[in-house]
C-alpha cells in the first residue's frame, strides 16, 4: 500500500511528465525561435519534479537551477507559436457548450475538497488528483486527443513562462539566507534601535520586523521563527508580559502585510501578473500596498489595545 509521501511523489512525477511532454512539443515547434533552449528549460524543470524518484541528488538539482537561470537570463525561453482559436470561433464554441464549460474548472476545487475532507491524503494530493480528473473529463467532453491537450497546456505554460519557477527559486534563496544567518542580523539590527522600555516600542519592532523580514524572504512562515525568537519572545512577551497566543497570531498577520508588497512572494504577486497577461511586474503589488499599510497599522493598534 502506498503511503501519502509516495502518493505525493507520484503526483509530482506526473507533473514532471507533463512538463517533459510540453518540452517535446516545444522542440517540434519550428515557429518558436528559441525552441531548443525553451525545451531544455522545461525539461530541466520537469526533471526536478521527479528528483526523488529518479534519484537526482540535491547538488544535481542545484546544477539544473543554475542552467535554468542562465537560459532565462540569456532570454532563451520564448513563447511557442500555437495560438488560441480566434474570438469568433471561441464565441461559437461558447454558444455550443454553455455553462457545461464550467464543469472541468469546478471539478478541481470539488475533487480537491473531497479528497482533503474524506480521505487522509491531504489537500496537495487532492489538488493533484483533481487536476488529473479535470484533464481527463475535459478531454472526453471536448473530444480532444493527447496532442491537443498537451498543446493547450503548453500555451498556458508558455504564457506563465519562467515566472512559474520563480517561487521555488526564491524558496531556495531563502534557504541560503537561513543557512547564512541573515535573520539573526536583521533581528539584532532592529532590536538595536528599539526603545525597549516602552511596550509600544517593542510591539512596533516586532510587527515591523515580521513585515520587513517577510518582504526579504517573501514568506511570513520563514520570518516567524527568526523574528519571534529574536524580538517577540525576549522583548514583547518576557519584558512586557504580552499574551503569546495573541501576539503570535497578530505577528503572523503583520508578516502577511509584508507578503502583499514583496516581489519575493512571487507565487502571490508575480505569477498572477504572468497568468493574467499584465504588463507591469509590480501591477499586483501596487494595488496591494495601500491595503497592506492600512492592515499593518490596524493590527498594531488592535494588538496594543488588547495586549497591554
Amino acid at each position, binding site marked *: 500500500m502506498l503511503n501519502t509521501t509516495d502518493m505525493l511523489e507520484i*503526483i*509530482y512525477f506526473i507533473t514532471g511528465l507533463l512538463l517533459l511532454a510540453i518540452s517535446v512539443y516545444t522542440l517540434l515547434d519550428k515557429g518558436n525561435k528559441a525552441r531548443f533552449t525553451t525545451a531544455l528549460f522545461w525539461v530541466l524543470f520537469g526533471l526536478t519534479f521527479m528528483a526523488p524518484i529518479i534519484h537526482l541528488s*540535491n*547538488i544535481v538539482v*542545484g*546544477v*539544473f*537551477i543554475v542552467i*535554468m*537561470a542562465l537560459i532565462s*537570463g540569456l*532570454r532563451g525561453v520564448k513563447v511557442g507559436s500555437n495560438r488560441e482559436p480566434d474570438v469568433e470561433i*471561441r464565441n*461559437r464554441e*461558447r454558444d455550443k457548450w454553455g455553462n457545461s464549460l*464550467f464543469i*472541468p*474548472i469546478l471539478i478541481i*476545487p470539488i475533487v480537491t475538497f473531497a479528497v482533503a475532507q474524506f480521505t487522509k491524503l491531504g*489537500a496537495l494530493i487532492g*489538488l493533484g488528483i483533481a*487536476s488529473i480528473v479535470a*484533464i481527463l473529463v475535459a478531454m472526453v467532453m471536448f473530444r480532444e486527443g493527447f496532442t491537443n*491537450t498537451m498543446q*493547450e497546456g503548453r500555451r*498556458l505554460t508558455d504564457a*506563465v513562462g519562467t515566472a512559474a*519557477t520563480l*517561487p*521555488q*527559486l526564491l*524558496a*531556495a*534563496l531563502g*534557504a*541560503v539566507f537561513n*543557512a*547564512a544567518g*541573515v535573520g539573526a542580523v536583521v533581528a539584532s539590527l532592529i532590536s538595536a534601535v528599539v526603545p525597549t522600555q516602552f511596550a509600544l516600542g517593542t510591539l512596533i519592532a516586532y510587527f515591523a520586523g515580521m513585515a520587513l523580514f517577510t518582504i526579504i524572504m517573501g514568506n511570513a*512562515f520563514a520570518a516567524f*521563527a527568526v523574528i519571534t*525568537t529574536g524580538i517577540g519572545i525576549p522583548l514583547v512577551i518576557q519584558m512586557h508580559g504580552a499574551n*503569546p*497566543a*495573541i501576539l*503570535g*497570531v497578530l505577528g503572523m*498577520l503583520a508578516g502577511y502585510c509584508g507578503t502583499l508588497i514583496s516581489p519575493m512572494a512571487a507565487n502571490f504577486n*508575480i505569477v498572477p501578473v504572468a*497568468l*493574467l497577461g499584465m*504588463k507591469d*511586474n509590480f501591477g*499586483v503589488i501596487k494595488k*496591494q500596498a495601500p*491595503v497592506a499599510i*492600512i492592515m499593518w497599522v*490596524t493590527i498594531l493598534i*488592535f494588538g496594543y489595545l*488588547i495586549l497591554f
Partner: protein
Amino acid sequence: MIKLIGILIVVVGFIFKVDALLIVLVAGIVTGLLSGMNFIQILDVMGKAFVDNRSMSLFVLTLPAIALAEKHGLREQAAKLISSIKAATAGRILSLYLGIRILIGALGLRLGGHAQFVRPLVAPMVTGAVQSKYGVQEIPEDLYEDLMGYSASSENYGNFYGQNIFVAASGLLLIQGVFKEAGISVDLLTMSKYAIPIGIWCHSVRHA
C-alpha cells in the same frame, strides 16, 4: 552586515529589471560564498529547498484542463454569464469573491488560487461586467491592468487574512511549534479567535 548583500542584489536587480531567475541565483551564490559556504554546499542547499518546495508549482498540473476549457469558450461564457446579471459590477464581483475566499480559508479548505480561479473565472467576469456596463468591446490597457491587479489582490487578501481563522491552519501550527521550542505553550483556539476581527476588517478595507 555583509550577509545582507543578497537582499541588495535582489532589490537592485528587480528595479533595473534584470532577469528575475538570474538575479535570485546570483544573490544566493554571493550570500552563500560571503558566509563561508563553498559552491557545492550552495548548490546542495538550493537544490534541496527547490525540491522541498515543489508544492508551490503544482498549479502547473491544473493548466491543461483550464486551457482546454478556455479553447472552447470558458472565458467568453464567464463574461456572458455576468453580463446577464444587471447588478453585477467589477467591484461587487471582487467583493463577493473576497468574501467567499475568506470563508473558504476560515473553513480550512485550501481551494482558490490564481491559476484555478482568478484567470479562468474571476478575471473574465470582471472584464465582462465592465464591457457590458459601458457597452464596449475592447478594454483600454491601463484599465485592464487595474482590473487584473485588483482581481489578483482579492485572491491574496482572502487567502492571507482568512486562513488563520481555521483552528488547525498551518500558520497557527507553526506559531505553536515556534513557541513550544521556547518552552511556551499557546492555545490554537485563542489564536484563531483573534484572527477573526482581522479577517472581517480586511473585507471592509478592501470594500472601501
